[in-house]
């Protein structure tokens, strides 16, 4: 099976990583181009309500900086995208913890709020999409993470388990529970 995001005869992620280590900056650009959108989608789908577009971009950038700074620690036991998602998830959890300790007044600046509303205008353009998003928002955080990774990114249960630090069986159960909940919410 090819790496997530890899098309046709494109070099695999491990090949690109080796090239980058050998000094090929184009390999880094290829890896970022292959996975950045998936990381942005994952962030927006799971934590979008509390994040502006700028926040998401910063989170994705921090994820890549962290990943490329410790690429020697990537042992290839999971796919590169799975590894990136697990890093992004940890960064987001750290950010959430820090926000909980910060006074509430400083959480949203005027600029951030305006950007967030602009993004929401785009995201809620269609009513059907809004209903789906509303249903998604009613899932538990873990159900939503698993469902987004399975449906939006096409990760296997094994890859999802590695990304969100759970078991393959638990990931399967979360997925089917989420599917059932969304059907019920949309039928209601």
């Amino acid at each position, binding site marked *: 099976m090819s790496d*997530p995001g890899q098309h046709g005869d494109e070099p695999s992620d491990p090949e690109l990583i080796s090239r*980058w*280590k050998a000094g090929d900056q184009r390999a880094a*650009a290829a890896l970022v181009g292959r996975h950045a959108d998936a990381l942005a*989608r994952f962030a*927006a789908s799971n934590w979008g309500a509390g994040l502006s*577009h700028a926040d998401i*971009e910063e989170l994705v950038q921090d994820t*890549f900086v962290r990943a490329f700074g410790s690429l020697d620690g990537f042992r290839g036991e999971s796919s590169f995208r799975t590894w990136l998602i697990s890093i992004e998830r940890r960064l987001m959890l750290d950010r959430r913890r820090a926000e909980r300790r910060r006074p509430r007044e400083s959480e949203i600046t005027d600029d951030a709020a305006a950007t967030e509303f602009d993004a929401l205008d785009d995201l809620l353009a269609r009513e059907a999409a809004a209903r*789906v998003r509303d249903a998604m928002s009613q899932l538990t955080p873990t159900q939503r993470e698993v469902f987004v990774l399975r449906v939006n990114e096409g990760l296997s249960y094994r890859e999802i388990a590695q990304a969100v630090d759970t078991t393959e069986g638990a990931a399967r159960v979360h997925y089917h529970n989420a599917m059932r909940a969304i059907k019920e919410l949309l039928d209601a």
Partner: protein
Amino acid sequence: MRDCPNAAMRDRLPDLLHGRATDPALAEARTHVARCEACARELALLRDVRAASPSPGVNAARIVAALPAYRRPSRWTRISRSPQLRVAAAVLVVAGGIAIGYDRDDRIAGDTVVALAPTPRPEELAIGENLSDLSDSDLRGLAREIAEIEAVTSAETDVVDVPSVGQGGA
């Protein structure tokens, strides 16, 4: 509408969206969906979910510009990360733990012997191999000592027992 009872096939529906499965598995799933209305509806729902998910574009060039240059790890870092060294370290730790455990067991066993040793056993009171080894004067001295021991024991018994007997008889 009821869900399709074929759980394995329902599990493959997201793979159909992304084409991330072996060709035979994908072909089997496509054939199934073509005949199964429940799975066809579920697949359509998955497409809707995917289409409705926010997809904020990011500036890849800016991210690439922010990436650190690759720094080859130092020789020590490479050595410390080698699997062989990790295995050797693990073996050393386990061996060290076992050795310390044995050492502690020995010391505990030694302490136990010291604690139990003072209890005299009857045979340790023996004066010689045989009473015939003793001279007449030794035997007389021994008889005296035995008599004194018996006297002391008797006196002590009186001290302990007499009051209670006396009280009971009064």
